[in-house]
């Protein structure tokens, strides 16, 4: 009985010591930083603030977005984001029918922060190329482009890891382009590949 108590006490002390060693010893193989690529697609809504021809604007369009992220073992990760956002289309009625589409191709630095294992928020800043395409019945096609230098986006998203490599999720993304004061919000369905 006495010996049994000594053995139990010995095991507990040993366990405590091992635990203490485990807490203080550096891992022999630190985890490497991880990279990931994400691609998303979904509908968007344009906040129609045109002062001219507002009634001809189609507010619902689509967005593609893609980003490459460096995801170290921290809550914050950083990357580069681009995409193609169809901001709005503009159709005038007959007889002088004109179809105009305006799109943005952003190139932004993106910061992402996990707020829980599954939820994250993104913030990105950078520039966008703005594309203006006009199709007319009597004058053919006219194309132009502009540059917006101070744009930003913000997103709230949910990510579900399928395995160590793949994840799927969805995010709500707000985009603001300062060049012509364009704003939209998109619901993107996002797939991720981690490497």
């Amino acid at each position, binding site marked *: 009985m006495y010996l049994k108590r000594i053995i139990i006490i010995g095991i507990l002390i040993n366990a405590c010591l091992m635990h203490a060693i485990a807490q203080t010893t550096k891992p022999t193989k630190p985890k490497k930083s991880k990279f990931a690529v994400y691609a998303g697609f979904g509908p968007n809504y344009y906040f129609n603030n045109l002062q001219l*021809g507002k009634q001809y604007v189609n507010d619902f369009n689509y967005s593609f977005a893609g980003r490459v992220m460096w995801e170290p073992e921290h809550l914050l990760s950083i990357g580069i984001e681009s995409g193609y956002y169809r901001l709005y289309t503009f159709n005038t009625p007959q007889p002088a029918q*004109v179809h105009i589409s305006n799109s943005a191709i952003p190139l932004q630095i993106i910061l992402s922060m996990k707020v829980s294992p599954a939820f994250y928020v993104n913030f990105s800043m950078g520039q966008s190329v703005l594309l*203006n395409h*006009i199709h007319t019945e009597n004058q053919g096609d006219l194309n132009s482009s502009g540059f917006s230098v101070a744009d930003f986006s913000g997103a709230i998203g949910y990510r579900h890891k399928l395995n160590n490599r793949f994840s799927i999720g969805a995010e709500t993304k707000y985009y603001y382009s300062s060049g012509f004061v364009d704003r939209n919000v998109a619901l993107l369905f996002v797939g991720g590949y981690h490497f």
Partner: protein
Amino acid sequence: MRINMKHQHTYWLLILIIFFSCNKNKLMFPPVNPADNLVNTQAIDNAVMKNMEGIYSLSDGSNSLGTQFVCKVSKTKVSFFSNQSGIVCILSYGLNTSDGSIQFAGFWRYAENATQGTINFSIAKTDGAADLIANGVASNIILKGVFNSPQKAISLKYERPFSQYVLTHEFIILAHGTIPLKTNSPFAVNSVNGVIHSEDYGSNGIETDIQLTKDYVPICMHDDSFDDRLTLKGPLYGDFSDFTFDILEQYARLIDGEKIPSLAQELQAFVDSTTMKYVWLDVKGDEDIFKYLEPVVGAAYAHAKAVNRDVVIFAGLPSDDVITQYKKQPSYGAQFPCLCELSLQDAIDNNCQFFGPRFTMGLLLDDVNKGHTLGIRTISWTLSDNTTILDYLQNGKFDGFISDNTPYVVYDYYALH
């Protein structure tokens, strides 16, 4: 850590406040003047009213609008330019046939801020109206009026005509971008309405910016591309040269709601709706621009001649690139005057009638004097600060200015010379 996070929030909040509080240049509409005193009045010929021009002084009432005024008459308005803070009064007028008085109604405003109000005047038949209407004599004129709410009384008395120096030395006052920006007029830069009303703000000419559309129509626009500083938000982005004039007419508007004008439209308004004389075409240098300008300017001269208007439309040569384009179209230079901005020697070499140095180059007294001996007039640009305007008028020998603040130029030139 918590303090850092707190500071971080404050930082972002400040950025957001600054971002959303940025304000672009806004047009300022004059206050509404019901102009009851103009009801049932009869139009008075502009040539008759032109005799009113001269120096007026405050004879009675409030001095808050100034104590001495320069009176100038445009095609449709009478304007008074004050010795105080560039205040300008712009007045419509008519003859009250029942009592023989001349009635005025309009607004006053500071040249450089949003302070403004309504103002009405009357010249009684016995206070000079009869003499002005019948004989074109202004020397007896006394204007009695009220301004603001609550009303303040004000009386102006004709003091003297313009000096002999002023009457014999034409001074060119060009509104920058067709309408002097600093006056916060309700008209957009490079607009037809800007052209029509620029004279009310004291200019006797305009400077306007020229670019080509995709279908080679010269239009009046400062920037290469759409910008909410100049145009309303519409469905078009990018460079103006990517669009045809027809598309711009349909789907683009200036910030005051007007269409982007072609040069032809602006020149027609200039000839038909003003008494101004000078147009400086600020050519932006599109390929073959002078080939496309030549017929437009030629048509404007022909129209001016047909309606007996004396106008001078000169093309600006601001760079070597534009001079190269100018030389590619020698028939343009053979018919129409030009202004070179680079140097007096470049103006001479290109047979220009005008030299247009930037004001930061100083008074350039030797160049200006040499230019005068060769028949070349010198116009300095762009003067908007009253100290500089006064300095350049008193110490320089320029033949004119481009200004964003023409009320200062008008008062300083006409009252102090």
